[in-house]
C-alpha cells in the first residue's frame, strides 16, 4: 500500500478546515485511507538509527508536522496532496468534482505539438503519450509535490519504470515537433539532469552503475542496459529531452519559473501509459491559469502500429451503469435511486443519472478513477459513501454442514495421542537449507523443490523431511535436561517433486506429503522407545502387526482387545539408511487393501548416526522415526 507524506498545516489550509489528529484519523477511516503515522523530518531522522546526524544537522531539520497517509494501491489519484485534498473535499460535499477539459492552444489544430514515434522503438519501449500544461504557476511546495507524484507513480503503477516512465520538460526551452526513436547508445550525447557535463548514453549507464551518488538510478539500468539501441526523445533541433526510462536532459529542466510543461510518458503498456498521463494531467492542471485544462499532443506512429491520428491525453472519460437493485443487493442496503445519484457526487462518480425508468444508475467515471472496471466498483463507492459501519449486518441463511479434511482430522487425533505419550510438539519451518535437509543427515542431495529467489541460505529448498526441524530444536534446547529423555514430535508437510500429481485438473510438478516425525534423545539411544511409538501409532490407526513380527513378543492384555481394520497389516524390517547407525535401523512396511498384497514402505526409524548428531551439535544419543500419514487414512 503506497504511503503519501503531506504537511499537516498545508493539508488543512487546502482543506479549509483544521482537525485534531483524532478527527482527521476518523475522516480517513470513513473515506478508506489510513492515517498511518504523525511525524516530522526531525523525528524521522531521530528514529533512523543508521543516519548518525550531528546536533546541528538535527536542529536544521524541520519540525513541521507530517501526516503519513496510506492510500489504496489502485487509487493513483490519491498519490499527491492535490488529489487527497480534492477527493476529501468532494467526499465532504464541499467541492464539486472538476470537469477536466482538453483545450487547444490555438484555433489552428495543425499548430498542435506533435510527437512522432519511430518503429525502432518497438523492440525496447514501443509507446509514447504526451500532453502540455499551459500557464502553470509553480511554488516550491507545488514543485516538490510534482516531483513526488512522479516518484510515487514510478514506484507503483509504473512498476519501477519498467511499464511506464514519465518525463516532464519546460516547453519554452525546446522546439517541437518531437521524435521518439531508438538510437545506438554512443550516438546519444547530452547533459543529463544528474550531472553538468555531457555524456553519451553508453558511458552514462556505466556511470549510473558505479557512481554511489547515482545509486537511486542503478535499479533502472538493467531495463535498457543490454539493448542494442536505447530509447531517446529529441526535439526538432535534435536536443535530447530524455533517455527513457533513465533520466531527462538538463536542457529542458523544469524550474520554479517554468510556465509551460511538456509531459511525455514512454511505455511498454499503452493502457498504463494513458492512466499515468491522465493522472499527472488531472492532478497538476489544477495549477494552470485555466484550472483543469490541458493541451493535446498528436502522437504519430510511423508504422501505424497504433491507430492514426492518436491524440493524447485521452482523459479517459466513460459511463458505467449499475442497476439500482444490484447495488442495493450487493451492499445489503435499501437506498432510493435518487439517494444513490447524490452519493455518486461524493465519490467522484458524478454527474450520475437514472436510466430505464429509474432502475439503472449511470455514473460518469472521470479519468482520475481508472480503478473503476465494473458495476461492483460503483457499488463499492456507494457503499463507502453510505458508510460501511451503517450497513445492517445479517448472516447468510442457507444451511451448510461443517466438516474437516480427513487427513487433518487424523493428524489432530494423533497429535493428541502422541503428546499423551510424552512427546512435546514443535512447529518448524517448511523451508530449509540444502545442507541441513540432506548433507547434515548424511543423505545424498536428491531432487527437491528449489527456490529461485531464496531470502537467505536457510531457505533454499522446501523440506523433504521433518527430521531437520526436530534436530535443530534439540540443538537450540541444549541447556534443557536430557537425563529423563527429551521427546519431540511434529505432524506436518514436506514437499516432493512429482510431475504426475493432479490437483484441480492442474499439475504443478510437486506434491505435499503429510508426515509424522518423532525424536528421542537421552542418556541412551531410546531405540526401543521410538520403536514403541511406531507400534503405538499403528495400534491407534487400527493396523494389525503381522504374525511373524510379533511371534516372539510377550502378548500383553492389550493384544486381546486390539481393534484393527480388515486387510491392514504392518511389519518392520531391518534396513540401511545413511542417517541411522548401522544395524539399528528399520523400515516400516504396510500392507493395505490398495497395495495388492505388497508391503509398501511408509517410513523408517533408527538410532541416529553419531555424525548426524555432530552436525546438529547434539551431545546425547538419539533415535527418530518419520512416516507418511496418508496411507494410514
Amino acid at each position, binding site marked *: *500500500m503506497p504511503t503519501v507524506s503531506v504537511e499537516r498545516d498545508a493539508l488543512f489550509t487546502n482543506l479549509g478546515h483544521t482537525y485534531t489528529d483524532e478527527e482527521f484519523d476518523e475522516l480517513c*477511516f470513513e473515506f*478508506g485511507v489510513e492515517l498511518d503515522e504523525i511525524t516530522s523530518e526531525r523525528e524521522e531522522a531521530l528514529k533512523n538509527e543508521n543516519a548518525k546526524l550531528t546536533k546541528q544537522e538535527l536542529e536544521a531539520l524541520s519540525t513541521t508536522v507530517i501526516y503519513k497517509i496510506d492510500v489504496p494501491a*489502485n*487509487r493513483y489519484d490519491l498519490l499527491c496532496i492535490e488529489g487527497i485534498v480534492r477527493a476529501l473535499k468532494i467526499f465532504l460535499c464541499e467541492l464539486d468534482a472538476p470537469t477536466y477539459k482538453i483545450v487547444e492552444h490555438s484555433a489552428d489544430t495543425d499548430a498542435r505539438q506533435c510527437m512522432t514515434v519511430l518503429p525502432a522503438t518497438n523492440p525496447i519501449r514501443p509507446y509514447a503519450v504526451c500532453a502540455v500544461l499551459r500557464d502553470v504557476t509553480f511554488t516550491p511546495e507545488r514543485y516538490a509535490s510534482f516531483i513526488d507524484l512522479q516518484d510515487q507513480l514510478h514506484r*507503483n503503477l509504473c*512498476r519501477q519504470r519498467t511499464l511506464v516512465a514519465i518525463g516532464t520538460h519546460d516547453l519554452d526551452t525546446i522546439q517541437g515537433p518531437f521524435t521518439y526513436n531508438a538510437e545506438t547508445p554512443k550516438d546519444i550525447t547530452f547533459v543529463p539532469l544528474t550531472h553538468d557535463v555531457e555524456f553519451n548514453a553508453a558511458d552514462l549507464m556505466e556511470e549510473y552503475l558505479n557512481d554511489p551518488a547515482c545509486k537511486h538510478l542503478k535499479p533502472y539500468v538493467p531495463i535498457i542496459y543490454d539493448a542494442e539501441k536505447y530509447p531517446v526523445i529529441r526535439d526538432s533541433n535534435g536536443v535530447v529531452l530524455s533517455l527513457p526510462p533513465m533520466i531527462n536532459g538538463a536542457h529542458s529542466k523544469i524550474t520554479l519559473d517554468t510556465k509551460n510543461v511538456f509531459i511525455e510518458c514512454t511505455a511498454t503498456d499503452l493502457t*498504463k501509459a494513458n492512466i499515468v498521463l491522465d493522472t499527472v494531467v488531472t492532478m497538476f492542471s489544477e495549477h494552470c491559469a485555466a484550472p483543469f485544462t490541458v493541451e493535446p499532443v498528436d502522437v504519430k506512429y510511423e508504422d501505424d502500429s497504433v491507430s492514426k491520428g492518436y491524440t493524447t491525453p485521452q482523459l479517459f472519460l466513460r459511463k458505467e451503469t449499475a442497476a439500482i437493485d444490484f447495488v442495493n*443487493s*450487493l*451492499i*445489503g442496503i435499501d437506498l432510493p435511486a435518487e439517494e444513490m445519484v447524490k452519493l455518486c457526487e461524493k465519490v467522484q462518480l458524478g454527474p450520475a443519472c437514472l436510466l430505464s425508468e429509474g432502475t439503472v444508475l449511470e455514473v460518469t467515471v472521470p479519468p482520475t478513477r481508472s480503478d473503476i*472496471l*465494473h458495476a461492483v*466498483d460503483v457499488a*463499492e463507492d456507494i*457503499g*463507502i459513501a453510505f458508510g*460501511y*459501519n451503517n*450497513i*445492517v*449486518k*445479517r448472516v*447468510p441463511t442457507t*444451511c*451448510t*454442514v*461443517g*466438516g474437516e*479434511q480427513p487427513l*487433518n482430522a487424523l493428524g489432530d487425533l494423533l*497429535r*493428541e495421542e502422541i*503428546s499423551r505419550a510424552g512427546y*512435546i510438539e*514443535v*512447529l518448524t*519451518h*517448511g523451508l530449509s537449507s540444502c545442507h541441513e535437509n540432506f548433507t547434515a543427515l548424511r543423505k545424498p542431495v536428491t*531432487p527437491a*523443490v528449489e*527456490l*529461485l*529467489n531464496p*531470502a537467505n541460505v536457510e531457505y533454499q529448498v*522446501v523440506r523433504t523431511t521433518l527430521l531437520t526441524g526436530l534436530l535443530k530444536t534439540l540443538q537450540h*534446547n541444549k541447556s534443557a535436561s536430557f537425563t529423563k529423555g527429551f521427546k519431540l*514430535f511434529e505432524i506436518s*508437510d514436506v*514437499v516432493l517433486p512429482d*510431475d504426475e500429481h493432479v*490437483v484441480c*485438473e*492442474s*499439475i*504443478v*510438478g510437486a*506434491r505435499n506429503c*503429510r508426515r509424522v516425525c518423532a525424536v528421542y534423545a537421552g542418556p541412551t539411544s531410546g531405540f526401543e522407545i521410538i520403536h514403541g511409538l511406531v507400534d503405538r501409532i499403528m495400534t491407534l490407526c487400527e493396523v494389525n502387526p503381522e504374525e511373524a513380527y510379533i511371534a516372539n513378543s510377550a502378548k500383553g492384555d492389550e493384544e486381546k482387545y486390539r481393534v484393527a481394520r480388515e486387510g491392514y497389516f504392518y511389519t518392520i524390517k531391518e534396513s540401511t539408511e545413511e542417517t541411522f547407525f548401522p544395524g539399528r535401523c528399520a523400515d516400516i512396511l504396510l500392507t493395505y487393501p490398495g497395495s495388492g498384497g505388497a508391503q509398501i514402505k511408509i517410513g523408517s526409524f533408527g538410532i541416529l548416526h553419531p555424525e548426524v548428531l555432530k552436525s546438529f551439535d547434539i551431545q546425547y544419543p538419539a533415535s527418530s522415526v518419520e512416516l507418511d500419514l496418508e496411507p494410514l487414512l
Partner: protein
Amino acid sequence: HKDTMAEALILSYLNTSDTTTIPDTFTWSEESKVSHQDVVGAVKSLLVDAYITADEITANFFELTSEGEQIIKDGSQEIAVLKCVLEAGADGIGMGDLQTKVGKNVAKIGMGNCMKAKWIGKAGANLVPKVDAVPEDEVQDALKALSAGSDVDGKVVQNLKRRKLISPVTRKSYKVSRGPSYAPVRVKKAADLTKEMLDSGAWQTTPFKSYNFLTLGEKVGGGYLHPLLKVRAEFRKILMQMGFQEMPTNKWVESSFWNFDSLFQPQSHPARDAHDTFFIKKPAETVSVPDDYYERVKEMHEKGGGGSIGYRYNFKKEEAFKNLLRTHTTAISSQMLYKLANQEGGFKPQRYFSIDRVFRNESMDATHLCEFHQVEGLVADYNLSLGDLIGTIETFFKKIGITQLRFKPAFNPYTEPSMEIFGYHPDLKKWTEIGNSGMFRPEMLQPMGLPENVRVIAWGLSLERPTMIKYRIKNIRDLFGHKVEMARTRAAPVCRFDTVGTVAEA
C-alpha cells in the same frame, strides 16, 4: 543415630535440670561430651515439631593458627633469633649458622622482625646485636592472653591477624528451652501414608508430619501441544460450528495462474514481484491447468466481459505458468470455487475454511517470518451482500472474544468491495487491525462458470498474531521454528476465548 542421641540428651536435660533450660548449647555439648554439630542438628529437628524453643547466640572470637600455637609453645621467631645473635657476641653470627640453629623458616621471619625492631643490625655478612638483653616476648604473651579469653589491644590483634597467627571465627549456638509441644521422649512422625501402614493398620496410631503447602507440586511430565496449534484447533472448531467445511490446502507449490491470475490479479501487479513472492527454480513451470478455464481467465484479463472492461493488456502464458510458493490460501479457495461451479448437479451454496501455511518474501522482523499461517473463511451463495459479510465476520470474532468491530474501506485486487476489519482487542485494550475481507470480484467468478447471481464473501487473518497476543509472545521466533524454548510450550495454558454472549443460556 547421632542426631537421635543428641535429641534424647537434650529432651532429658530439659526434663531433669532445675532451670529446664540449656543456656548455651556450645558449652553444654562440651560438658555433655557430644559434638556441637550433632546438637545443632537435633535442635533444628526438634524445633520443627515445637518440642523446644531456641534463641540463637552468636559468638565472635579468634582461633590460633598452627603457627600461633607453635609460638605459644616455643616463643616468637624474633626472640629465638635475637637470643642466638646475643649468644654469638659482638662479632655476630652468619646467616648459615643462624639457619642451622633455629631452622630456615624461623631464621627468615625472626631476622626480618628483629631488623624492623632494630634489635639487630648487619656487620658485613654477619648479624650483630644492637640491644643488650632479650626483651619480653610480647607476641607470645598476646597469643596466650587471647587463647585464655582475655582482652588484647586492637592494634596487637591486627598485627597477629596480619602475621596469620590468629583467624577470626563466628560461632553460632543456641539457648534452648522447653517448647509448647515439649515431651521428655520424642515420637517420630510419618511423612507420607504408605502401603505398609495400610496393611498393618499403623496409619491409625501414627502421627503425621504437617505438610508444607507453600511449595509447588511435582511437575506432571508427559507431553505438550504447541501453542499455535492449540489455537488452530480452537479456530477449526469454531469454523466448523459455523457450518464451514475445511478445504484441502496441503499444496504449497502453486502456479501463478491459480495463485494470481484466477483471482483477476493482473500480471503486472507489484505483489507478483520477486520482492514479495518466492518463485521456484525447480520445478520452474507448471505442467498444466484446465485449458478452457485458462482461456476464459486470459480473455477476462485482456478484454474484460460480463460488464467489466478488464485490464486491457497482453496476458502472458509464461507468466501464468511460473511456479511459486503460494502467497495465500486463496489459491486453494479459487480451485474450490472452480470445482463448486463445475461439480455434478451444478453449483450448491457452500461455506469453506482453511488454516494453513503461506509464504511471502518479505523482510523479516520480530513479527514477520517468510512463512506464516493464514486463516480464511468464505461463503458462496446466491445474492450475498456486504451486510452478510459483516454479520459473518462478527459471528466469528465474537467466538474468539472480540465483540466490538469497525470496518474500513480498503483495496484488494480480487475483492470488491473490500474491508479491513478493526477490532477492540480485550487483551491489548485498544483498536487494532485484525483481518481483511471482501467480496470476490465478478471477473474472478464468471470465468469459473458460477451463476451470475452467486456471490462469494470471504475474510482472512493470520493465526500467528492472535496466538502471540493470547500467549503474550513478543517475537515470532519464540512461537514458530526451531528456536522455540520447550519450557514455553510446557507453560502454555489451554486455548479458550471469552465467549460472553455466544453461549446459549441454560
